[in-house]
């Protein structure tokens, strides 16, 4: 449609009259909400990984993506050449159930930096009024951002699992048997990573939605994932009584660890949840409450935010 448009070279004149090749209307399809939602989702996902942005914007996402992958690659390498390092029993190596604990910090890092990036700019520069005047609803905006950041976290969490699975299958003489063994892990992998991704992204976006200054929002998000763990640790150490062990439910990190342990059917790692000695299903329920609650608060916030 624009054939010839770029053929015209630069010329003087602020009115741009030499560029004028007449206004053309648009008779093509006009898509609706779904298209707008997908557009927002893709745009936010690209922004989270710094695609189409400056090199500086790519550093942190690349770091968050590379280190978990590296961790998994090292594990695969050890299982391949384990005997040379004197490891006779490969079961001592970390496996799928251990990944959440190993890479969770990178998910936290990513959301703490990128959630304020995804929301704060549009509020601070009042871009929201231009979004809301298009073929979408306020709720679409909020859910597209949530979906995109969740997807980004999910990718970071899944990459090491994929590497472990590929490594395990390639290292087995019996490929089909290896595939079968690995496939049994994947329901737990998907369940735990999807829940963790939505909860982590949701909590971060809720905080970013209420604090439009990027630096403050980043600090606040780190705070929510770190400070409760310390307080909970202190309270548990004080051994204040039976009821006090329920304070672990206030720490999103510990709660998500418990949910992961539930999915994989393993004991929770040494930490607050083990000390509190609550059923893992309670951790699962609390994680679901966090994920659903954060999403609901986010949507409600964007229903009423000034634009």
């Amino acid at each position, binding site marked *: 449609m*624009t054939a010839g448009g770029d053929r015209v070279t630069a010329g003087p004149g602020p009115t741009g009259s030499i560029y004028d090749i007449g206004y053309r209307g648009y008779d093509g*399809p006009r898509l*609706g909400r779904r298209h707008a939602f997908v557009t927002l989702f893709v745009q936010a996902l690209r922004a989270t990984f710094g695609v189409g942005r400056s090199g500086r914007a790519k550093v942190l996402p690349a770091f968050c993506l590379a280190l978990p992958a590296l961790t998994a690659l090292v594990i695969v390498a050890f299982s391949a050449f384990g005997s040379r390092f004197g490891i006779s029993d490969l079961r001592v190596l970390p496996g799928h159930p251990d990944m959440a604990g190993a890479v969770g910090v990178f998910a936290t890092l990513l959301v703490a930096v990128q959630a304020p990036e995804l929301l704060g700019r549009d509020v601070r*520069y009042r871009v929201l009024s231009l979004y809301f*005047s298009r073929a979408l609803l306020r709720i679409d905006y909020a859910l597209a951002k949530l979906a995109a950041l969740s997807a980004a976290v999910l990718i970071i969490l899944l990459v090491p699992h994929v590497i472990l699975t590929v490594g395990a299958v390639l290292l087995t003489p019996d490929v089909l048997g290896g595939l079968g063994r690995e496939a049994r892990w994947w329901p737990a992998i998907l369940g735990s990573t999807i829940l963790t991704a939505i909860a982590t992204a949701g909590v971060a976006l809720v905080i970013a939605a209420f604090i439009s200054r990027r630096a403050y929002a980043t600090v606040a998000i780190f705070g929510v994932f770190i400070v409760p763990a310390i307080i909970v640790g202190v309270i548990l150490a004080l051994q204040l009584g039976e009821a006090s062990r329920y304070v672990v439910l206030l720490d999103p990190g510990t709660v998500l660890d418990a949910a992961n342990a539930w999915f994989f059917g393993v004991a929770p790692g040494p930490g607050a949840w083990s000390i509190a000695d609550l059923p893992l299903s309670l951790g699962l329920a609390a994680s679901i409450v966090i994920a659903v609650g954060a999403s609901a608060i986010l949507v409600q916030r964007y229903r009423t935010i000034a634009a």
Partner: protein
Amino acid sequence: MLEPSPENPAPLIHVEALTKRFPGVVALDALSLDIAPGIVGLVGANGAGKSTLLKILLGLLAPTSGLVQVMGYVPWTQGTLLRRYVGYMPEHPALPPDISATEFVANAGQLSGLPAKAARERTADVLRHVGLAEERYRPIGGYSTGMRQRVQLAQAIVHDPRLLLLDEPTNGLDPAGRDEMLGLIRRTGTEFGIAIVLASHLLGEIEAVCDHLVAIDGGRLLRAAPMAEFTAETGILTVEVEEGRDLLAAGLVARGLRLLDGSSAHDRTVRIALDGGAPFDIVRDTVADLGLPLIRMERGRHSLEDLFRDDLSAAPAAGERP
């Protein structure tokens, strides 16, 4: 003439008994009006309800009561369908600083329903129309106010809307930038065939650009009429002479013309009531007979300011639609 919407030939904008209350404030008070395609000026003082009306027309605010239809759609319940055909330029700057005009406008086009490829093509077209050349690939943060306003206009027309809602589009522009922006708006309305509602508190802008005028005050309609009615010729003929003004006045009265008060002695003009007639020959002959040095003979025109001032002072009586 434009087609309001493919689905519906209803009037472009139909508003009936529209009331919008905010806590403690009545922003719109039983407002009724119909707007036909064209370039329509929406005037009123700050706080008259202009921005509130535009946001209701877009479906961004729910009316407290009353009926609103835009191209046959009810904005509050059918907003996402309606907004595929509507462009909006808010009164405040609303652009992110860190991405380029090209990226922003293309994205805006997609969010209004254009497929990605069409959005990119129309972005190039539209940015050229608003006069953004090489700079469109640079981040918006480095643009002048005038360039930003052009980008804001571009994002509003990238999806070839049938209706364009502009809220104080010359905010913050210097006089030259203001004139350029008004020229662009005028072209958008005439050459591009997009219906425009232009909200402004600056009468000069409205007069320069619009065909129709809707005046609101305190959330109520003052008057809605074609611009021509506001700036129509008055029934007054002004005659100015170098000297002998009183002689002329006496001569004209002697020939049966009615003079108006305000033809005061300390200026050199006589104001003649036309009363439906055209006494140009009588005036010429009188001047010639008296041998007076004639400077000018001019039919008066209302200025928008006059009428708006009159309307405002007579606001309670002028509440109905003309």
